[in-house]
């Protein structure tokens, strides 16, 4: 019996060793240890042994069973690992194959830039205020110190709807509306569409967008205007971008300034884009003309303020190095999809 046990042990161990798949291991297990297995059969046959031998043989049988089980487990793990490796190897794919089409869309680049501009000023505590695009002459011009037949109106050829109704030529009428209805402190920006009777070309469009800002409070200085625009320029176009103020004239402000920004293309070294000057004219700004404050019912001896305005399309061309303003209104998908 002992001999038989040894023989089973050796043979089954060998079979386990030679098994090639998890499924054959199971067959081996059933053949040896199953209900009708060899070892189980031997155990059953123990009754025929003399009682004094039984414990010893029982021990032996159990030893063989334990050895076989341990071996089975070990081999099963080995085979499972091998089979997993084989499966993984078989699952190799061509990672260079392109995936499905990109699903993302995008905002129009002008609105990407406008949104960024708005973010910067909202972050500095400005409220966004909206106003009508078809506007009274009174708000678009008169309250901004541009009376009828003033030559300053020539600078902005305006579309008329009626004698006293225009397509706003600037977003400043929003400022006039705010000044006539609110009390300082005022800190607003007014982004939006404006209209001027210019034929479309590489730098002009009869419809474009502006963003203007207005601050009215006690003790506001021109230095505060410069500081604000410096911060804007830095956030908009990056570190190292500075502003340069040049004297100018706008009926709405006094003193007035044209504001140049460091050419982002050459970082001020001078290049083709800035015509070698290192500066690009981007903004108009100034201290709100006390006449305007008074016309809008704000005490100009107590309050002062600054205002600034800029073209969003121009900023977009600068930011993305777009050579022609027409691109922005052609809506060519080959252009638009570059922004997704």
């Amino acid at each position, binding site marked *: 019996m002992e001999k038989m046990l040894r023989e089973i042990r050796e043979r089954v161990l060998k079979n386990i060793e030679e098994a090639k798949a998890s499924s054959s291991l199971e067959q081996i297990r059933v053949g040896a240890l199953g209900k009708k297995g060899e070892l189980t059969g031997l155990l059953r046959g123990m009754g025929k042994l003399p009682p004094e031998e039984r414990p010893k043989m029982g021990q032996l049988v159990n030893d063989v069973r334990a050895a076989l089980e341990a071996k089975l487990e070990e081999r099963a793990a080995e085979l499972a690992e091998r089979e997993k490796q084989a499966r993984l190897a078989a699952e190799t794919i061509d990672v260079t194959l392109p995936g499905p089409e990109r699903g993302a*869309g995008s905002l129009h680049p002008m609105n990407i830039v406008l949104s960024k501009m708005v973010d910067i000023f909202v972050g500095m505590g*400005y409220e966004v205020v909206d106003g009508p695009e078809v506007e009274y002459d009174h708000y678009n011009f008169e309250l901004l110190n541009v009376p009828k*037949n003033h030559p300053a109106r020539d600078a902005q050829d305006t579309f008329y709807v009626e004698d006293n109704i225009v397509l706003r030529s600037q977003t400043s009428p929003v400022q006039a509306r705010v000044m006539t209805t609110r009390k300082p402190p005022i800190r607003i920006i007014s982004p939006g569409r404006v209209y001027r009777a210019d034929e479309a070309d590489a730098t002009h469009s009869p419809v474009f967008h502006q963003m203007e800002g207005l601050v009215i409070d006690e003790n506001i200085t021109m230095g505060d205007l410069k500081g604000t625009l410096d911060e804007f320029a830095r956030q908009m176009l990056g570190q190292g971008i500075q502003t340069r103020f040049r004297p100018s004239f706008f009926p709405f402000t006094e003193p007035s300034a044209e504001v140049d920004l460091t050419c982002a293309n050459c970082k001020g070294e001078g290049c083709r884009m800035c015509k070698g000057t290192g500066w690009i004219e981007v903004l108009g700004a100034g201290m709100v003309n006390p006449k305007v404050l008074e016309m809008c019912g704000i005490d100009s001896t107590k309050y002062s303020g600054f205002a600034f305005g800029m073209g969003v399309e121009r900023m977009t061309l600068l930011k993305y190095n777009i050579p022609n303003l027409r691109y922005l209104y052609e809506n060519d998908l080959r252009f638009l999809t570059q922004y997704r």
Partner: protein
Amino acid sequence: MKVPMKWLKEYVDINMSAEDYASRMVMTGTGVEGVEKTGAQFDKVVVGYVVSCVDHPNSDHLHICMVDVGEEEPIQIVCGAPNVHAGMRVAAALDGAHLPGGKIKKGKMRGEVSMGMLCSGPELDVPAGLYPHIGDEGIIEIFEDVKPGTDVKEVFGLGDDIVDFEILANRPDCLSVWGLARESSAVLDEHFVMPEIAVEEAGKGTFDDYAKVEVLDDENCPRYCARVITDVKIGPSPKWMREYLYGAGVRPINNIVDITNFVMLETGHPMHAFDLSKVKEQTIVVRRAKPGEHLVTLDGKEHVLDESMLVIADKENATGLAGIMGGEESEIVDDTASVLFECAAFERANNRITARKLGVRTESSGRFEKGVCPETTMEALDRACMLVNMLECGKVVPGAYDHYPNPKAPVEIEASVKRICRRIGVDVPGETMEDILNRLYIDTTLVGEDTLHCEIPAFRLDMDGEADISEEVLRMYGYDHIPSTLMNAVTMPGFRDEKTAFADRVKAALVGMGLFEVLNYSFISPKWIEKLNLAEGDPRRKTVTLRNPLGEDTSVMRTTLVPSMLNTVAGNMNRGNMDGKLFELSRVFVPAEKAGDLPTEKTALCVSAFGEGVDFYTVKNIVVWLLAKFGVTASIEAAGDAYYHPGRKAVLSVDGVKIATLGEIHPDVASAFDIAKRVYVAEVDLDALMPLEKPFYGIKPLPKFPAVSRDIAVVVDECVGAGTMMDAIRKAAAKTLEDVKLFDIYRGDKLGRGRKSVAYAITLRAPDRTLTDEEINATMDKVLKALNTQFGAELRA
């Protein structure tokens, strides 16, 4: 305004290059467009002396000339001009010269060597009048005894630096050489020296013996000055004057006309010269035009005038448009013998309106529009007479006419040093301010520590308050002194207004769904609205219309975004972009009921989709998902405008309020927009959607009890909407319904024509218990009953 540097330097010392000077001016507020030299259009053209001139043996019109160009030996030049002859001084372009027409190279002409070219006026692009006889036929003859080899630019007075100033609207005084010299003197801290004006009068009698002036409209003609010149000798003006005029961009004509132009450029006062003999009864009347009065201006154009227009007339007819352009009748001609010089101040607005109405804009009208100082009118007139003396082209009759009934009171401003510093954010000492202002000819005294007493000179029409003083101080002190500070003020919350924020959320949702934003003009062609085939009384046919559009294509404000979108789609298809999903979020304009009221501006959204794999449900889903993003569920019905496909359009509404319309564009409309493929469009009324937005309060608790799924298939008539039935299922199953999905639609002979079977998977679940079979069956019965009563649905066998 173009100004020759030489002319400026007569009145102020400028000891730097024109470019450096220009940048100093720019940084103090006088714009400069650029600096260029006169005569830059050519080089290497010298005075030549034609030593000999013989006919070319192989040509019937060419000549072979030996020309002394200042070199050791004369050079041979072949010339075809009929007026070339020996003993003549000419303008000779040498080998390698650049002319406006191209480069000159030595070569052979019909076998004869030619080392250059003899030039005509047009070949050098110099105008007749710059030099006598330039305008004649053939090559230029130089009459002066100039050494051969001399650069012709010296002879013609070319080569000076011309600064092209861009004068701001508030500084009309700088539209003159004197004004700019004065401004330059302040900027450079140099002296401005104006010529002493002294007129030498001669001849018998006084002004009144020769002419009479009647000003009938003081308001529009605040000042009128006139003088008479007799014994006029018309001829060319001297070289220096021609050179200055040419440099300033004005064509020299003759001495009298040149004087009026010269004075306008130098003083900023437009002038006019009348041939006095052509003025009826030698009387000038300044009056409003009679209605329908005719006038032919100097440029030969005939105008019909109205009563608002100020004219210069004689006793009978209007002879000129005041301050705009003179008339043909009293024009200066070669035999003009006596002249009346006019120098006046005309009112801005009237001048501007008249010039606009008639479409005539001149140097003169441009100046009056911006403002001409009435104080210095007489000075300018005398400057003209002084030039008549200098040019010896006539006798200035003693006395002048001067009508100036309401002299302008001088402006005085009291300003506070402290307030100015606070405004500009720069600490400028009071004494420095005083000095700066005095340099600008603003007579200023610092009283005590803080008060500046300023007397504004008459020519500064723009200054009337402390803010103006602050600007003068700052621009001269230097804008580069402005510090960069952030305001020391109360903190305020920054935010987007609700509408903008909502629009941004809409856009973000659409971008997330793969759409691209487009931008279109707000004005379109009325024809585009026609193309939509809207019903006769459709409100979208009523537009806000521009009075002065750029063209018909951009003449009406949009009442719908659809036409622009279709145009955008067509444009993209033309360029080969055959697939796309686009949106535009913009305003549409509804005209006001009453004239004088503003139109209503609504926020609209238009979506389009076209190309492979795109169908009705693509745009439908975009809209449904967009609405879902805002917590809005809309009911949908098959309806919509006629520009949609009759069987593929839908209207989405919430509680009876229309939110969106969508569908496939009708092929007729598509083809009217040159679109040959199917296009799907959706329009969303964002103003209607915005108030429906449901804030997201929080989550539903996750289920603890199991769900049950039941499938049903019902047979209905073809016309019953599968989606409509889903709504009915939702309603009938009510509380325990978790989800309903459509999973099959079947049509077949067994069902009969016009019938379909629709199958739904219905999931039921209760939050607080496991549903019992009885409950489930009861719910399913309710569902079936509802489908049966509402749609005649029968359970499919």
